[in-house]
């Protein structure tokens, strides 16, 4: 029997480092073999601030994953995030040589390169160049132009770029543990691969992954990625707000957020209090539930408003047919759906990984959505390198990018 192919997805998050080991079964479906996890240190707002500590976290998470999955990890796919990451849409164009007339892979590469002939800041590197649509001689909506006849090939791309050294730092963390990085993927792109099915992508959907340090969001319209964004605001900010507003230590605020946190401002009874027990170095106190909820509500509402503002700037929000999918640790907050629905005026759901097999506790937990998404993305890329389909060229291009990183 051929040995199962293993794919490992690694998410270096602000709250936790998480490694998912998955195998591709003969029928092409994914099965999660095990999940390794460690609490993050040295990572703030999705970016490395203490290299040694972060490396240790990656080492712990990978060791944990190896043990749980009973497998040896030699290479991973890694997700990246950070407030420095930016995106835009651009169209590339290339002329097909007269003597040929038939579009081949070189033309696809040319059109992609021409779309990337945009000036990005010198210190930035391209993370993704994702195809939206091809146009052959102005014929709209071509999915795969290879083999078609035409004089002119155009294509719309969604291009994501970020500060090169910051991405390299994430990668160095992994290579320092003697594990290869196959490629990098933007957090939101990874999350979307598991929380959305093809139908939802076609209908149009917004995915918001509200993590500890960052909120990654992405808009699918008509089956293609229309917009991506990263906002360096996350659950840590809520904790920080609570800590400042109620004058309690960060650790207590974090606990309070997880146990009692809610953004329903009307749900608290007048004068209802939560008693915090005294503890070593903490004298204990009573906090008003309505105050707690207001603090959280203000932050969450603002977060949605910022994202909504940015999305409406770049996309037609009416074309988002299937609504908003929330994922990431923060989407477990009580009442968050109502706030989101109020801001976006769209149906809102929390979503965890779909279409994967494995321990239910893993794929139903939105905290793991990104890491599982990385695996799913890796699988997609794996397939497309052999059978170039809708995502044509992406895997190869990213591979090229990554070689550039490996020269570090």
């Amino acid at each position: 029997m051929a040995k199962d192919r293993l794919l490992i997805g690694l998410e270096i998050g602000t709250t936790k480092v998480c490694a998912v080991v998955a195998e591709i079964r003969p029928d092409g479906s994914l099965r999660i073999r095990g999940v390794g996890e460690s609490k993050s240190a040295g990572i703030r707002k999705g970016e490395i601030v203490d290299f040694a500590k972060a490396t240790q976290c990656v080492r712990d998470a990978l060791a944990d994953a190896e043990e749980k999955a009973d497998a040896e990890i030699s290479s991973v796919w890694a997700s990246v995030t950070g407030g420095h990451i930016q995106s835009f849409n651009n169209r590339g164009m290339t002329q097909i040589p007269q003597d040929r007339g038939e579009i081949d892979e070189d033309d696809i590469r040319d059109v992609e390169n021409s779309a990337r002939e945009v000036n990005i800041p010198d210190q930035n590197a391209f993370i993704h160049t994702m195809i939206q649509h091809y146009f052959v001689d102005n014929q709209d909506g071509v999915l795969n132009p290879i083999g078609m006849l035409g004089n002119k090939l155009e294509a719309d791309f969604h291009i994501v770029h970020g500060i090169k050294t910051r991405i390299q730092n994430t990668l160095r963390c992994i290579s320092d543990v003697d594990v290869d990085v196959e490629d990098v993927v933007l957090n939101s792109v990874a999350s979307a691969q598991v929380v959305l099915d093809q139908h939802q992508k076609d209908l149009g959907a917004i995915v918001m992954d509200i993590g500890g340090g960052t909120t990654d969001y992405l808009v699918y319209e008509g089956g293609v990625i229309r917009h991506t964004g990263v906002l360096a605001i996350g659950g840590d900010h809520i904790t920080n707000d609570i800590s400042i507003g109620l004058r309690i230590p960060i650790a207590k605020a974090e606990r309070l957020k997880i146990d009692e946190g809610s953004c329903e401002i009307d749900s608290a009874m007048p004068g209802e209090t939560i008693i915090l027990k005294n503890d070593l170095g903490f004298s204990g106190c009573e906090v008003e539930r309505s105050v707690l909820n207001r603090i959280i509500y203000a932050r969450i509402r603002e977060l949605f408003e910022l994202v909504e503002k940015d999305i409406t700037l770049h996309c037609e929000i009416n074309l988002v047919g299937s609504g908003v999918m929330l994922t990431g640790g923060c989407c477990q907050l009580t009442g968050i759906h109502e706030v989101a629905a109020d801001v976006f005026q769209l149906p809102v759901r929390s979503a965890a990984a779909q279409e994967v097999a494995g321990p239910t506790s893993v794929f139903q937990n939105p905290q793991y959505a990104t890491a599982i998404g990385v695996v799913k993305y890796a699988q997609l890329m794996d397939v497309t390198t052999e059978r170039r389909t809708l995502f044509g060229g992406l895997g190869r291009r990213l591979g090229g990018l990554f070689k550039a990183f490996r020269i570090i």
Partner: protein
Amino acid sequence: MIPIPRSTLTAGSDLSSATCIIGIGNAGVALVDALTLAGAADHTRLIAVNTDSVSLSASVSKEKFLIGQQTTRGLGSGGDPELGAQAAEEAEAELAAIVDGAGLVILCGGLGGGTASGAAPVIAEIAGRANALVIAVVTLPFSFEGKRRARQATDALHDITRAANAVITFENDRMSEIAQPMAGLHETFAASDQILADSLAALLRLAAGAGPLRITLADLIPLFRPGSVTARFGTAAAQGGNRANQAVERALKSPLLRDRHLSPCEHVVFHVEASSSLRFVEVETACRALSAQLSDTSQLHLAVSINDDLADTLIASVLAGGSSVPCDAVVYRDAQESISHTPRDDSPLATVENLPPSPVEVIPQKSENRTADELFNTEPFSVAKDGQARRTNKPKQETLSLDSIARGRFEHSEPTIVGGEDLDVPTYLRQKMKLR
């Protein structure tokens, strides 16, 4: 329009009255217009020179001069440098009268077309004969404008380099480094104009600054002997406790200077400008930071100016010359840093305005509902959180404690600034929401 506050152009020095800025060609006239509107004409002579009478009549500059009345009949040079040169030669006597008595002549224009490419070398020569120190500040065309323009620009640059004492260039292709990828055309050009205007303003301040350590024209002239001319120029502003180091570092790390080193330059003029709060140790720190980039043989000329309009800002400018390396110019703006934490909400222009020294302008924010310290905390320069800065800015003790609480655990992390608001500060505080 280029927003240069009047205060950046220091008044009242005898040197500045002997300075004249000549804008040549359409680009040069536009720059002179912008400087005029910003009020620079009060202390410096600004002259617009062009072959195109329409462009001149639209100019707001007080002194206008049409060259080539016979050659081009006021119709412009049509992109032909030969015509531009002929036009200038025809008006030689008048041009000589204009630059007569000027100690420092700054020529600006966009190379690649006809007028600036042709006339600028001629005017530089005329000014040189009048014993003025001639500094040319020119832009080079975009590479997509074609090879012909590029060649005309290179030839013109070569000629100017021979005639002027120093040439500071800005390649339009470098615009990508100061503007965002999808920024509007107007924004992009405005950012490039801003760079040039700031270079000019910094040059004027360098020549005119009043303070304990002065650089006079007499000091500059031997630095930039005609013929052996190359100039590297960088200027940057910084605030906060570590401002001296930051300003030097920014100037040296600027996108234009990054690939090139100062070490081959024999003469380096280093100009530090700050309010009277400037301390000796800051000058020392800045000089040390700069000296690390210089070779053992290069000579450092230090100039220090005191300008009390600057509040907490320290501006460091580096002008280096005297080597056989290709010339280039550098003005560093904090644009890259702002790109990193303001995803597409802020145009780089918002941060380009960092340089203006008044603290109110430094901070592109809604100021009415924020305390002074909150404002201070969210300004684009992340160094501003240092203790020393707070000492000089805090009005009273209470706001200091509010400040340290306001960002909590994010106190020492890179701020998340969107639309000018520091999102690390709790939302309910920023929105003044009542909790109880």
